Every structure is written in structure tokens, then in C-alpha cells.
């Protein structure tokens, strides 16, 4: 099936979305949600950030240089690292290298397999594929590492009696924290599993919707979506696992003692 040319959205049409914005502002005013300012700020940021990204992507796609693509990926990883550590809400500088490793390895392996083994894009850095796919992978890897890391910490605190009992029975930190680790990695994967269960039935994923709107055959769009769902699950589990393993070394000494001053920070 030939893709029909997509109907472009003009600046005038874009500004007509103001009608929907008024609806939200009106509701906020009527129900005294006091969210008008925040909402308008959100709208402003949506416009500015996305238009900016649009221009940058347009520029990078037209130049088609591998180093520019890698630069964009590096910026994505750095931003995800900052946002991920921020969400852990701990004043602990050592979380940065851990987050970076889980994103680079967890996300990197997934990106490599998807672009070079499954899709086999040519050239390897083809920005039209690599940038959006890497964006999704890095974003989800960040969620995985953050969810897993935060849950691991709270499980260790919650299960400190269990962990200490096992340490006292002569088990190493790895065995003593096995239940906490298991809970943390599962918790990180659950949102992904849930969305896999309902994908296409309850929700049409954003990327697939976008492709269909852009004129791609739904049959091709769903194949991409399948790849996307599986790559997201891989990125999430790998990065959550790496984060938890690295945190384990951070929370326990090599003599199998709990570093409470780090855990409770």
C-alpha cells in the first residue's frame, strides 16, 4: 500500500489548539484547581521544547553525520541520568555513575541489537531510526533503573530484620538481599508487563499512532510496535538489574555489612 502524503499542520491550525487549552483552563478555574498557571507553563514548554527538538532533528537528519547522531545520544543519556538521579531524591553523588552505567549498558545493548541485528539499518547511525528508537530505549531504561533502584532501597530498609538474620547465619550479602533484589527488579518490570498485556486492545501506542497518522500501513506499524515493546522490556529489565546490582555494592561492604549511613541517606 502506498503511503498517502501526510496533511501538514500549519501554524494557524496549530494555534487553534487554543480551543482545547481554554477547556482545561476553564475547568481548572471552575473547579478551583489552581492549576491554570502551571498548565499554561506546561503548554508553553511543550511548544518550545518540541519545536526546538523539531528544528534540531530536521537539521541533524539533513546533515546525516554519525558524530552528530552520537552527540544527540550522549545528550539524551546525560539528561536521563540527571532526571533519573533527581527522581531517586538522594543527595548521593555516587548514584550518577551507577545511573550512567545502567543506561549506557542496559540501553546500549538493546539499541545495538535492535538497530544492527533486528532492523539492520544502513548506515548504522541512520538518524531517522536511531534517534527515535534510542530516545524510547533510554527513557524506558531510566524508568527501569529508577523504579528498581528506589524499590531496592525501600525493600532493604523494610526487610532489614530478614537481611541481618541471614547475614548472622553466615550468608553473604547477595543471598541475604535476594528477596529485596527480586522485588525491586519485578517492580521495575511490572508497568512494562502491564502495557504489553493491553497493547492494541486498550491502548494504541504513541509511536504506532504516529506512524499510522503519517501514512504508514498499519501492518508495518504494528511490526515496528512489536519490536518497540520487546526492546522496551529488555532495556527496562537490563537497566533495573544493573542498577540494583551496583546499588548492592554501594549498600553493603565487602565484609557483608550493611552501610546504614548510605541506605538511610
Amino acid at each position, binding site marked *: 500500500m502506498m503511503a498517502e502524503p501526510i496533511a501538514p499542520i500549519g501554524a494557524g491550525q496549530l494555534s487553534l489548539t487554543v480551543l482545547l487549552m481554554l477547556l482545561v483552563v476553564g475547568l481548572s478555574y471552575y473547579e478551583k484547581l489552581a492549576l491554570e498557571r502551571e498548565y499554561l507553563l506546561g503548554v508553553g514548554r511543550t511548544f518550545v521544547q518540541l519545536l526546538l527538538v523539531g528544528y534540531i532533528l530536521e537539521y541533524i537528519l539533513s546533515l546525516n553525520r554519525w558524530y552528530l547522531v552520537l552527540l544527540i545520544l550522549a545528550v539524551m543519556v546525560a539528561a536521563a541520568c540527571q532526571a533519573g538521579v533527581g527522581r531517586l531524591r538522594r543527595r548521593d553523588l555516587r548514584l550518577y555513575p551507577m545511573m550512567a552505567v545502567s543506561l549506557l549498558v542496559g540501553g546500549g545493548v538493546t539499541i545495538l541489537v535492535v538497530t544492527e541485528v533486528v532492523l539492520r539499518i544502513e548506515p548504522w547511525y541512520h538518524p531517522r531510526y536511531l534517534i527515535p528508537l534510542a530516545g524510547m530505549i533510554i527513557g524506558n531504561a531510566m524508568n527501569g533503573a529508577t523504579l528498581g533502584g528506589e524499590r531496592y532501597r525501600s525493600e532493604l530498609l523494610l526487610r532489614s530484620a*530478614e537481611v541481618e*538474620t541471614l*547475614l*548472622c*547465619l*553466615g550468608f*553473604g550479602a547477595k543471598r541475604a538481599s535476594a528477596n529485596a533484589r527480586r522485588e525491586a527488579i519485578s517492580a521495575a518490570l511490572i508497568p512494562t508487563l502491564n502495557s504489553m498485556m493491553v497493547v492494541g486492545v486498550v491502548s494504541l501506542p504513541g509511536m504506532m499512532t504516529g506512524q499510522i497518522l503519517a501514512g504508514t500501513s498499519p501492518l508495518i506499524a504494528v511490526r515496528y510496535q512489536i519490536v518497540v515493546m520487546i526492546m522496551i522490556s529488555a532495556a527496562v529489565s537490563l537497566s533495573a538489574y544493573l542498577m540494583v546490582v551496583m546499588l548492592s555494592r554501594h549498600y553493603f561492604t565487602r565484609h*557483608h*555489612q550493611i552501610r546504614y549511613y548510605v541506605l538511610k*541517606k
Partner: protein
Amino acid sequence: MSRPILTLQGVSFRYRVSRHEYGPPVLKRVDLEITPGAIQVLIGSSGAGKSTFLRLLNRLEEPTEGVIRFDGVDLVECDPLRLRRDVALVAQEPFLVEGTVRENLMLPFEDGDAAGGLGDKMERVLHSVGLTAGMLTRPAGNLSVGEKQRVSLARALMTAPKVMLFDEPTSALDPDNRGLLARTVRRINASEAMTFVVVTHLEDFARELDGRLFRLRDGEIAAL
């Protein structure tokens, strides 16, 4: 007099509050010898650092200053996992894994390093803590606090430790159960010649144990 099984020389301890900062002193230059085969009881009010003292003896914590020796060997030279099987610690709040009493008693051997004859051993340790073999199939979740405490002690006995550290064992027990527990400790000590270090805030219970008494106050330990 026989050589002490655990020796503390000038041991001070402060909890870390960050990588480079320490809190107020919990123990101050403590010198103490733990006699093998005896019951020693450390009395102190809550928050005095009694639990911390025990945690240092099985290397859950490291002293900020000073040396602790087990059988003459500096603890920093000991493999902590091996040490914790020789110097067992029963925590104030007993933690039992989900499953039966049997599964709890088998827990220390899940690595498969059991020397055989575990069935007999389980019955023997249950008996020594005043419980019967009928307990083996009971779910750990249904036990009373006193029973949990005993199963927790029995589980620690399974690895045949040389020293048993017992942290505030009476915290959830009524006076009858306290007396029972004191008799249990004395019986195990007499029959197995096992060294006990028990910490408590109850003077009566401490006397019932009929051992060497020490008091921990303001970070210092003195014999009574």
C-alpha cells in the same frame, strides 16, 4: 583460667553518619575478655549501645578504634561469613522465614553443606530450647512470640557455634517465659559448654542467668 574466647582491647565505636563523619561515641575504649564456656550478661538501659556491642563481636560492624580477637585472631583477619557461624547472634526481634519450623531450622544449610543427620540434630536442638519434635511441621507464622524466640535460638544452635550472642531476648516475653528462657540458656551452657553473651536491661533476668555480670553505661563497660 582458660584463654578468653573473645578479647576486646581499647575498642571504641561511633556510628557513621556519612562517608567521613561519625556520630557520638557509643563505646569508649572498652577492654573486656569473654570467658569460654561461661555465661556473661551485659546490663544496660535501652539505647546504651548493648546491641552495638554484640554487632561488633560478629562483625556486623567494625570498631572505630581498637582490636577484637576471636580465639586469638584479630577479627579483621577472619572471614566474616565463617565467623558469624562460630559467633552466632540471635536478634532482639526474631525473624523466621515463611514456611515451617523445619524449613527455618534447615535454613543455615541451604547451601548444601549439611553434614548429614540433620533430622536428629533438629530434634535435639528443639529439645534443648524446650520445644518438641512435633513443632517441626508447624508454620512459623503461627508461633507465639516466645516460641519464635526459641525457634530462632534453635536455628542459631544448628550450626554449633562456639559463642552465642543473645540480644534482649526477653523484650517480648512475660515473667514466666523469661524464667523459662533463663533456665534454657543455663541448660545449654551446661550441657554444650557453650559461651553465651546475653544483653538485657532487666536486672532480675540478668541474675536469673547466673553468669558474670557487666554493666554498660556511658559507653564504658565495668564488671559487677
